[in-house]
């Protein structure tokens, strides 16, 4: 039963991890302040929509996980496909996290990248398999604080070193004229402005802020519906300042060390820690970032093992066994995922930065998932076959555009969303409507326009409210 300000802090705290500092600084080094789009047009409008439209729905509909909602609203096949997609995504994200941790170790301590990867994998693998971190909540808070202090110190010291904002602009603009524009031209192969609007603002951002499990769960812990909505709404204010902590350091690194190229641009943040902070503080901040990165790997590893054990193995292979059996299966899967992540980590180099790597992996299934979730909540005529074929068509479109055509992940997200939306509507109209009994408590109109609630509203209106 938490007040709104705790909800806000929780949302922001979980939204800015070590990976975000490192990935966003690398992105800013590469693209300039266009990287801030992820925190502004790619977050704030969706947070407002989420607070006023989706949080009240989740609050009244009761607690659901998104896969559970999709399973009830459509059918088991949709739920299993979602679990497979999510499980595959988590497995690949592990590789990206490993790569980030490897870069951090390599840049700060000079250990070769392969040794860094193996060291990270060994540490994470051993303590995840033996039971995970104890007192996770407390260590997370300490890490967050040290990272925040480190981020502020880097920004202040960096700005002082380059001669303030005007010095920063003067040193970068001659060689990178677009680095202080939020929107990049349409011929930019990675983040053109139209892609930022269609793919990020219209699809990836609302998919995350309105329909992502981690975000929804934060708001459901509130003491009242107003606190849940306000928690989301007021989190948008500190969210607007995050670019100062994560984007500005990337620009400072570019000003101070313009020699990083290709995948090495993601070294911008650890390079700043090593070269700008005084020795004692640098070590502390490096340790906090390393611990936070490994903590992210640990929780992702646990999530991946849980999804594959519960939604795949238990559902299709061994349906009834002891808890100990499933625990051992989870441990074996964890070991397999660590090996997979070591193998996948170098693939991260193929993407223009670790931030784009994560977004690209998300874009393959976020568009179709958002489309069928949106129709499942908002349109009572959507049928189970519409949802199933919409999801399959959307993933087929995104895979074709991403792997075969090599389109920007932003356009992949947009067109797979549109494709899934169209297929879901067409197939739904061609198939038998779902009975009202199945839709109760699931469709927006039936949840929000409940007779009892309408009665309260009309009585208040009569009372001159």
């Amino acid at each position, binding site marked *: 039963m938490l007040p709104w300000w705790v909800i806000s802090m929780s949302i922001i705290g979980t939204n800015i991890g070590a990976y975000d500092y490192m990935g966003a600084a690398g992105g800013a080094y590469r693209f300039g302040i266009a990287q801030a789009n992820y925190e502004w047009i790619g977050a704030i409008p969706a947070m407002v929509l989420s607070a006023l439209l989706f949080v009240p729905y989740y609050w009244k509909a009761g607690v659901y996980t998104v896969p559970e909602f999709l399973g009830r609203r459509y059918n088991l096949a949709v739920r299993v496909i979602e679990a497979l997609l999510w499980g595959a995504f988590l497995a690949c994200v592990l590789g990206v996290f490993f790569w980030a941790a490897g870069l951090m170790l390599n840049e700060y301590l000079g250990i070769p990248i392969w040794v860094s990867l193996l060291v990270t994998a060994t540490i994470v693998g051993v303590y995840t398999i033996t039971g995970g971190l104890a007192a996770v909540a407390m260590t997370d808070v300490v890490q967050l604080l040290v990272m925040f202090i480190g981020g502020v110190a880097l920004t202040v010291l960096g700005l002082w070193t380059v001669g303030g904002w005007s010095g920063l602009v003067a040193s970068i603009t001659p060689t990178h004229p677009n680095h202080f*524009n939020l929107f990049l031209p349409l011929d930019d192969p990675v983040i053109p402005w139209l892609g930022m609007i269609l793919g990020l603002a219209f699809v990836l951002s609302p998919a995350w802020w309105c329909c992502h499990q981690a975000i929804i769960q934060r708001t459901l812990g509130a003491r009242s519906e107003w606190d849940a909505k306000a928690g989301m*709404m007021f989190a948008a204010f500190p969210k607007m300042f995050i670019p100062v902590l994560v984007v500005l350091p990337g620009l400072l690194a570019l000003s101070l060390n313009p020699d990083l190229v290709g995948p090495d641009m993601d070294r911008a943040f650890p390079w700043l820690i090593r070269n700008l902070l005084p020795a004692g503080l640098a070590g502390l901040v490096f340790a906090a970032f390393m611990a936070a990165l490994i903590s992210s790997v640990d929780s992702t590893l646990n999530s991946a093992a849980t999804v594959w054990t519960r939604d795949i193995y238990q559902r299709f292979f061994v349906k009834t066994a002891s808890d100990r059996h499933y625990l051992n299966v989870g441990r074996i899967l964890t070991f397999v995922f660590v090996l997979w992540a070591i193998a996948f980590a170098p693939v991260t180099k193929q993407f223009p930065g670790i931030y784009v790597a994560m977004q690209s992996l998300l874009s393959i299934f976020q568009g179709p998932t958002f489309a069928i979730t949106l129709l499942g909540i908002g349109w009572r005529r959507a049928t189970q076959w519409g949802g199933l074929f919409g999801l399959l068509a959307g993933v087929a479109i995104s895979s074709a555009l991403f792997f075969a055509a090599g389109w920007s992940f932003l356009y992949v997200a947009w067109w797979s969303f549109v494709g899934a939306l169209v297929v879901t509507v067409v197939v739904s109209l061609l198939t038998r409507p779902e009975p009202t009994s199945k839709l109760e408590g699931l469709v927006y109109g039936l949840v929000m326009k409940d007779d009892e609630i309408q009665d309260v509203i009309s009585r208040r209106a009569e009372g001159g409210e």
Partner: protein
Amino acid sequence: MGDWLTGLPLWWGKVIAAVFFLGIAVWAWRRDNRGWRDLRVWASVLMAIQFLLYLAF
């Protein structure tokens, strides 16, 4: 995306973003929670700040 798109001027993006922000602000506005607890006001403030940011950069 098609080559025809690359001809679209960058200021179109600014206009679309401005309409997007103002659209959400108007939508929110037209939806003891009075005064500072009226979330519609804060939604409009957030969108106004976004509008100014995208105007500035």
